[in-house]
């Protein structure tokens, strides 16, 4: 059954989004380069360890949301970095919405292969300085090609259906997506009929008439959904470079690039950005749409997740057993709950703004002044490492 091949697509693509976000947030929080690099290399190395990849590619039913979350909890903490619960929650929500956006915007389910390979290409770039980890990613890349390249169209539709079922009722607003017009204010991912047609697609508005198996007449009209439509891509080969499908590229990289452009052009990093920045101090409870309350993890789900736990999660070890770790108390600073108790059906907003230097400074102040050494098990703080963060 094709839907038993959904797990690698889910983990690799969501994992790719996680690495994009971590890379950007580590940079935004002024974590020194060698520590950032180590975090990324460790997480990528763990994600593509041979045992994990072997188990991942074994045909199996797609994991539940809670079990998948546990995999990423372990992956995120397989490095020297420690994240608190709130940061991990937001990170997971961002990863979810990122891949959900890509999944919904594929014009044909086979484009998911392009998306996956785009993620892997970018992960290779992140670990280019570590030949061992690079080899692991390359091996996984090959396995993706071998597994998915020859799948039939129908299998891709089954895979898409399985993944959409996984993401059903997951809706969190992301300020970056809202700003870029990728998401509506109710949390819906923006879809469009426009752009290139899928393979074997035809521009709407054509009517053909047949008699005895032969076409006898053809009529062309211009309905609304025929506007701004391009022919199917001529070379949708996922191995061709540059890849024609851009979904799966790093959506968060442009924020960093914008800041670097401002800096390199002699502009102040405090200059007013061209687009209005997302409001600070905001996890805003907004208009009703759907549905995060359905995914509050209840006790039954937790037990089920533990029981299912989770051959993949068990295979995630740590590459940093004897290494000093550092914690990030708030991966997404300047977001605080602003709950409106009268509003029962709400969609969270995650503010993602790499250009807010104020938030970076306050994040550093928070680390120095408000450290709580009594946080959950697994949190480990080391003073000298903190001084290195300044």
């Amino acid at each position, binding site marked *: 059954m094709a839907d038993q091949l959904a797990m690698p697509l889910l983990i690799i693509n969501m994992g790719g989004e996680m690495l994009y976000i971590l890379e950007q947030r580590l940079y935004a929080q002024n974590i020194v380069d060698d520590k950032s690099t180590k975090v990324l290399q460790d997480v990528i190395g763990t994600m593509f360890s041979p045992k994990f990849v072997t188990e991942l590619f074994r045909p199996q039913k797609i994991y539940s949301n809670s079990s998948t979350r546990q995999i990423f909890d372990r992956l995120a903490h397989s490095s020297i970095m420690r994240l608190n619960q709130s940061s991990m929650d937001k990170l997971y929500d961002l990863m979810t919405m990122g891949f959900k956006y890509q999944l919904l915007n594929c*014009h044909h389910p086979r484009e998911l292969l392009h998306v996956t390979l785009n993620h892997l290409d970018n992960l290779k770039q992140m670990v280019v300085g570590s030949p061992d980890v690079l080899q692991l990613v390359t091996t996984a890349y090959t396995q993706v090609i071998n597994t998915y390249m020859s799948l039939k169209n129908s299998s891709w539709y089954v895979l898409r259906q399985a993944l*959409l*079922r996984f993401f*059903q009722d997951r809706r969190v607003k992301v300020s970056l997506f809202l700003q870029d017009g990728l998401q509506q204010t109710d949390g819906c991912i923006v879809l469009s009929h426009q752009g290139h*047609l899928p393979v074997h697609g*035809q521009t*709407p*508005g054509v009517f053909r*008439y047949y008699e005895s198996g032969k076409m006898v007449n053809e009529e062309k*009209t211009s309905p609304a959904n025929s506007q701004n439509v391009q022919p199917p891509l001529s070379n949708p080969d996922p191995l061709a470079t540059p890849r024609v499908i851009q979904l799966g590229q790093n959506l968060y990289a442009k924020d960093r690039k914008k800041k670097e452009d401002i800096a390199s052009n002699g502009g102040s990093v405090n200059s007013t950005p061209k687009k209005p920045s997302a409001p600070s101090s905001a996890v805003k409870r907004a208009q009703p749409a759907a549905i995060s309350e359905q995914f509050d993890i209840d006790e039954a789900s937790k037990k089920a997740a533990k029981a299912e736990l989770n051959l993949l999660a068990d295979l995630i070890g740590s590459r940093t057993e004897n290494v000093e770790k550092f914690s990030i108390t708030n991966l997404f600073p300047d977001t605080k709950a602003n709950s409106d108790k009268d509003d029962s059906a709400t969609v969270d907003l995650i503010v993602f703004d790499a250009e807010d230097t104020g938030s970076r400074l306050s994040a550093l102040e928070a680390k120095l002044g408000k450290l709580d050494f009594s946080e959950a098990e697994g949190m480990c703080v080391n003073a000298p490492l903190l001084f290195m963060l300044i």
Partner: protein
Amino acid sequence: STQSTWDRLIGLLRMSTGAKVASVKVKTSVSFLNNNLTANSSNLGYIHRSEFYTLDNKPNALCSEKCDSNKGAYSDKDPLSDLAYLKLSIGEVLVAVTNLGLVNVYDESGQKLLQSFKVASQGDICLRGLSSNGKELIFIGSGSGEIFVLECSNKKIGLLSKIPAHKTAIIDVKYSQLHLVSVDDSGTVVFTAVKPDNTFEQVVTFASPNDVPGSSIAVGHGFAAVAFVSGLIQIFSLDKCSLKAEICAHTRSINALCMHPSQPMLASVSDDTFLCVYALPSGKAQIRQLVCEHVTNGVLCGVQFALKDASLIVVSVYDSKFLFTYPTPK
């Protein structure tokens, strides 16, 4: 009557606002499945994960901001793969099927299980495509390419026969005018004649040249409309089992079709967010497009002509707790 007063009021409201697409909030979101909205004269039904929900097919439900939907009496964990209202000799029933081969027959409200049958299989059998001959037969497509024919009466339900219609998984099956029309995931369309003694004979097969999966079938008014994931609709004549026309309808996969109960009118919905409605060929008149409307930002996965006079089109959307409505064109 109260009902006609309601209809007039709703019509006036719509005209005054100029808005055509409206929405009604239901209890749970709609799952992504082809043809995920079914209707009869009294109810609508849809699948949400491993559950199904029914709601009233009436103006006071569909033309308000919010309506009550009732959870159906299905309690297994196996995800539902298809749901359809069918007319049988025993009355109107709601049939739900699963990937593991379970066939449950409920009363119209979906609250009472009338019959249950398990298709024997090793592993997933992927039942998809539901239809009936209006009497005692239920036709169900399967992942093996066979059409299962079940005989259902008040007292029992059992497997009558299996029709080896396809070589790959069937996506949809519909019955009309003594023919079964079925499409599979390679795009092959098969016409099978249903004889008076309930035996079956394959009439003709239309192979897809491009391996483009089929997605939905609607039958009525002498036609069988078959939709594909490329956005194409093929219109076949049921009398001659021959291809009459093709409509390039959408820019993405078509997920559901519905035939108007009394007029030669066909509705289609797609991943491209559009609802299209066509007047089918009638006499010398060719196909005319009556509606091409962006419904909402979402993958549209079900469409039905609703209300007693089929004056309202209802559309279901993946991941949305709203059903969207549109007035049926005249």
